[in-house]
């Protein structure tokens, strides 16, 4: 796949393209650079994985914060329904972001508990 394959080029055009390909080429990767490249790819992958692991914790922390803000102290009445409803889009966004990032069709148990508490959704067992 390294030779130009457009056979409709005129000979002069082919020669021109060949010159460009010859003069505009990177140096080949040395063994050391190949190893460094692979290591860099794995390092990026590990960073991505760590971020993805931290995301559920971040979502849980955000939900807990919302809980503290909108549920009041123990024994107190909950804020009016309209105040609670202000928080719903934000919490929904947090949960949806976490869900999208996890690339999972099923909410983990802790999200389902939070969804039940905040979104007044009935508890459902995870689907097999």
């Amino acid at each position, binding site marked *: 796949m390294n030779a130009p*394959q*457009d056979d409709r*080029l005129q000979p*002069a055009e082919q020669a021109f393209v060949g010159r*460009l390909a010859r*003069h505009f080429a*990177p*140096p080949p990767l040395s063994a050391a650079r*190949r190893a460094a490249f*692979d290591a860099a790819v794995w390092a990026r992958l590990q960073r991505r994985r760590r971020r993805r692991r931290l995301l559920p914790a971040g979502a849980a922390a955000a939900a807990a914060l919302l809980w503290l803000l909108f549920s009041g102290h123990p024994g107190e009445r909950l804020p009016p329904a309209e105040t609670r409803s202000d928080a719903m889009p934000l919490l929904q966004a947090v949960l949806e972001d976490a869900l999208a990032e996890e690339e999972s069709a099923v909410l983990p148990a802790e999200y389902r508990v939070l969804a039940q508490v905040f979104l007044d959704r009935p508890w459902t067992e995870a689907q097999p």
Partner: protein
Amino acid sequence: MAGRVAHAPAARVGTVREAERDARFRAFVVAYRERAWRLAWRLVGGDAAAAEDVAQEAFVKAYRALDRFREEASLATWFYRILVRQAQSYWRWQAVRAAWRRQDQQPAAPQGPGDPLLRRRIATALGRLSPSQRTAFVLVHLEGFSVREAAQVMAKPEGTVKSHLHRALRLLRQELADLADDTGGQAP
């Protein structure tokens, strides 16, 4: 406790699956690393650091799609598509940086074998093409993809890719007229 015990085999399966995935990914990187680096280098105009960044990011994104693509050919096409998008994103950022850069500051010359001035001229001429023209030209004429493969990578009809190729070649021959003659810019 019973729940944890019940989940242990599933966790082991997950670990095994991840190990298999990692092994497949490692093989994919080894097989495509060289070409990805060369393609990225040409797409970003010969900036070695940017080429590494573009290629590595494309590999990381490919990792997440390993399970979706059982056939390596499909995965490769998808991978090159990601790489091309990464390169186009790089060009967009370059355009923003160029707007802020002082006139007397020149970007670093592309590094590689051969004549550095000629390399810079080619990089500049490629940089003046539209992103689609540049991508089509690099894929087909410099990297040897067929028009059909380039169309798949660019997610465009073959006719559109041919049109980009035609215009790119005409513009480059105008811009680099000395290379377009039979002597290739060399004195006889």
